């Protein structure tokens, strides 16, 4: 039988090339048309420390990083002990016999990574040895990796050819070792090339590129895991005339600078993680109050406080909705896949410009580092929205009326004051009750401009439905597919537009007897929000710092459905 899908994990010490291996494999496999997804965790220390990276290769779109491993590559004993239990029945372990010997052999075979690498004349070819062995095990053709090596190392430098030859030799050596071991996982089905061009990108990059597509031209950010990569990417790419990118001295400086940039007419952005968002509450409130467009990306990590900087969680939602005091309701877009990271970023800017206010893009650690093939965005088809700009003469009442009004750009006529205190039509401070009523309703009325009907739904007749959000979409959709296949009568809803929710979707959800929300937090944050909006929702929560496993989630959904059928809703 042909295999359609395999999951491999590289585990060892930081610096041993775990990430390179998984990303290399993903690159190679995707280049011939497989679908791929990587998953990476970093240790908290800078050098060394237990690291692992994973790649999943499949003939169909990859929804989750995979519950169990087909192949584990263990660089050292610690890694072997930590990960061996996740190898599936019939899976194989490749261990570095130069470093250790596992107590019981079982489904494993050893190679001396370093020694074999040396034989190629390139001591740094360990990863290629491993990839070669791996390719044999999963039945991937030699050609794929050879081509990949050739492309990757053809950099127009002297000595390219030598390096290519050494690496191909390494691949071959690895393959031979695996062959000798006698293990095999069967033949990998040939790729079913996805329709249209693909790109290979991770979530942070997708957010950054999406921002560029939307026209970002002002970025100020402060380093923080897992959002730092967005700052670094911008520093390199948001260049050229009229662009501004800068490392701030703190998140408080960042949010206020971005506010100033938005006021000056820019498409302004910052990216941070939970601790930074906690510091931005006051500035976000100001942007809401003064009606200044800007986009803040929160790449969620484990919380609260300094929390779990290198782990994934979906627990900043409540904070993001009301990051500051007073009546505010932050527009929130939470992408669920790497592809959605791109479009969420475009939409976040569109929303900010459309309603003239702050927008929060809620990403997650698990998306940020995940490298995946996605359809290449068609830039010409993107709808990029720009600010409604005031073009009249001086004496304009910028805050007149109960809804959106054109925004003047400093330097051109139409001067006014952007004011964090309650203000009159010119932006001057006032305390009149009528004004506070008008301005409050004006600010909330603008949210109506963000309403849309972008959501997924399936099997909408079912009375019990699943509605994941953010990065839990992947595992949830895999679990849903599995339950569907098993004949469960379940519906599916999903949107990345968390606030405001698509109106029609909300109406439909209200009619359901139960909406099950898988989410990675303790409190069941999203289901609470849905309940406050009149939906009978419950959460399936997990707070381990890791994404859901599909089988586990499917089981918990089944249990919850059974309970519901027995008891009726108890919210």
């Amino acid at each position, binding site marked *: 039988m042909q295999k359609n899908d395999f999951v491999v994990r590289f585990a060892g010490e930081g610096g041993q090339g775990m990430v390179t291996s998984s990303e290399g494999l993903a690159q190679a496999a995707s280049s011939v048309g497989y679908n791929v997804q990587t998953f990476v965790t970093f240790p908290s220390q800078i050098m060394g420390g237990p690291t692992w990276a994973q790649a999943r290769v499949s003939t169909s779109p990859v929804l989750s990083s995979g519950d169990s491993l087909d192949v584990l590559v263990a660089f050292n004993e610690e890694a072997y002990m930590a990960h061996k239990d996740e190898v599936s029945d019939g899976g194989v372990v490749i261990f570095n016999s130069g470093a250790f010997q596992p107590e019981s052999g079982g489904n494993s075979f050893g190679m001396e990574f370093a020694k074999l690498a040396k034989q190629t004349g390139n001591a740094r070819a360990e990863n290629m040895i491993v990839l070669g062995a791996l390719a044999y095990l999963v039945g991937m053709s030699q050609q794929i990796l050879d081509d990949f090596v050739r492309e990757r190392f053809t950099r127009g430098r002297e000595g390219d050819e030598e390096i290519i030859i050494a690496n191909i030799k390494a691949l071959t050596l690895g393959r031979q070792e695996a062959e000798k071991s006698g293990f095999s996982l069967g033949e990998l089905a040939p790729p079913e090339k996805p329709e249209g061009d693909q*790109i290979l990108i991770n979530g942070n990059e997708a957010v950054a590129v999406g921002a560029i597509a939307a026209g970002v031209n002002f970025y100020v950010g402060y380093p923080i895991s897992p959002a730092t990569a967005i700052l670094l990417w911008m520093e390199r*790419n948001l260049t050229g005339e009229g662009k501004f990118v800068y490392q701030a001295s703190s998140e408080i400086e960042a949010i206020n600078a971005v*506010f100033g940039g938005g006021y*000056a*007419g820019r498409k302004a952005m910052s990216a941070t993680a939970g601790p930074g968002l906690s510091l931005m509450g006051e500035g976000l409130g100001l942007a809401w109050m003064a009606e200044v467009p800007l986009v803040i990306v929160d790449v969620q990590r484990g919380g609260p406080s300094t929390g779990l900087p290198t782990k994934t969680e979906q627990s900043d939602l409540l904070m993001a909705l009301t990051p500051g005091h007073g009546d505010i309701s932050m527009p929130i877009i939470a992408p669920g896949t790497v592809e959605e990271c791109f479009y969420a970023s475009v939409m976040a800017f569109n929303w900010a410009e459309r309603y003239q206010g702050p927008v929060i893009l809620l990403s997650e650690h698990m998306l940020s580092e995940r490298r995946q093939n996605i359809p290449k965005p068609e830039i010409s088809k993107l709808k990029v929205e720009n600010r409604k700009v005031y073009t009249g003469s001086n004496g304009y009442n910028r805050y007149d009326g109960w809804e959106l009004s054109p925004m003047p750009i400093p330097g051109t006529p139409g001067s*006014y004051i952007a004011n964090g205190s309650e203000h009159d039509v010119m932006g001057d*401070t006032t305390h009149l009750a009528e004004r506070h009523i008008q301005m409050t309703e004006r600010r909330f009325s603008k949210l109506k401009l963000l309403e849309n009907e972008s959501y997924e739904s399936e099997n909408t007749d079912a009375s019990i439905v699943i509605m994941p959000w953010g990065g839990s979409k992947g595992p949830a959709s895999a679990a849903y597919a599995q339950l569907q296949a098993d004949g469960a009568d379940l519906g599916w809803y999903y949107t990345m537009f968390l606030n405001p929710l698509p109106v029609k979707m909300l109406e439909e959800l209200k009619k359901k007897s139960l909406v099950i929300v898988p989410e990675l937090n303790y409190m069941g944050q999203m289901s609470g929000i849905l309940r406050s909006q009149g939906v009978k929702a419950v959460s399936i929560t997990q707070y381990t710092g890791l994404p859901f496993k599909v089988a586990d989630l499917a089981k918990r959904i089944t249990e919850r459905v059974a309970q519901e059928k027995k008891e009726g809703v108890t919210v």
Partner: protein
Amino acid sequence: MSAKNPEYDFKWCPGCGDFGVRRAIEAALKQRQTETEQPMVNNVVVAGIGCSGNMVHLLEGEQPYGIHGIHGRSLPIAMGVKMGSPSLNVLVVAGDGDFLSIGQEHIAPQAARNLDITAVIMDNGVYGLTKGQSSPTTKVDTITSSTPFGKSEQALNPLMLYLALGVSYLASHVSTRVKDLGTTIADAMNHKGFSVVHVQSPCTTYNNTFQELKGNPKEGIAPLAWNIPEQHDSSDLEQAYEVVKQGGIPLGVIYRNTERPSLQDRVDEINNKSFERKIESIIESFAI
């Protein structure tokens, strides 16, 4: 109060030093308007929260753009405005509490960057708007509403701080010398880089220091304010430190470094070195 708006209801107390600062700023804006031939809407006044911050609403005549944001954040907001639209003139107006207490963290980065804006600080040694608490520049042992047994911390020397942080233009002044102050503010706005005009602007209600500043020979009170002598070389940092160390309130330009590139110069340089990346080519770089 600006005639434009009957709803706005804040007024400075009679005699407040900020009135003088207001007239000086109005004069400076007009002077710069003539010198640069730019329209008034090319100016953005970014205000802190305090009696002083209300400046942004109280300026009379042709109206510049303005931001009245949150307490202590005028500098980062000003950075955003200036770097977002470099042809604008950006003027920060803030009080000693706003700028030197809750907002103090923002001075060092802008000094290091030499952001090309001008900050006019109205120092009254007290929190005026919240009714008389101590501020960083309140003298030690002073009794205020929040220090009923005397202030237990040493007063900050803001001029020394600015120099230590590398502010590239520093002037010190009093609110009563409206004409000189106006010229100084215009001069600071003309400076390419981060300029601070630190003004003693007494609070008649909670900390009336007019007499101390001017002195009162009859009562044997020597004036705190003194004119920086003509021969002072403001381009010399050593001499600038000397002026500040003499204490009291020096009047005039203490330091002026015209050699340092401004943040905009730096950014231009980088933008010239690098090239604009088009979205299509960026996406292409991720092609499989």
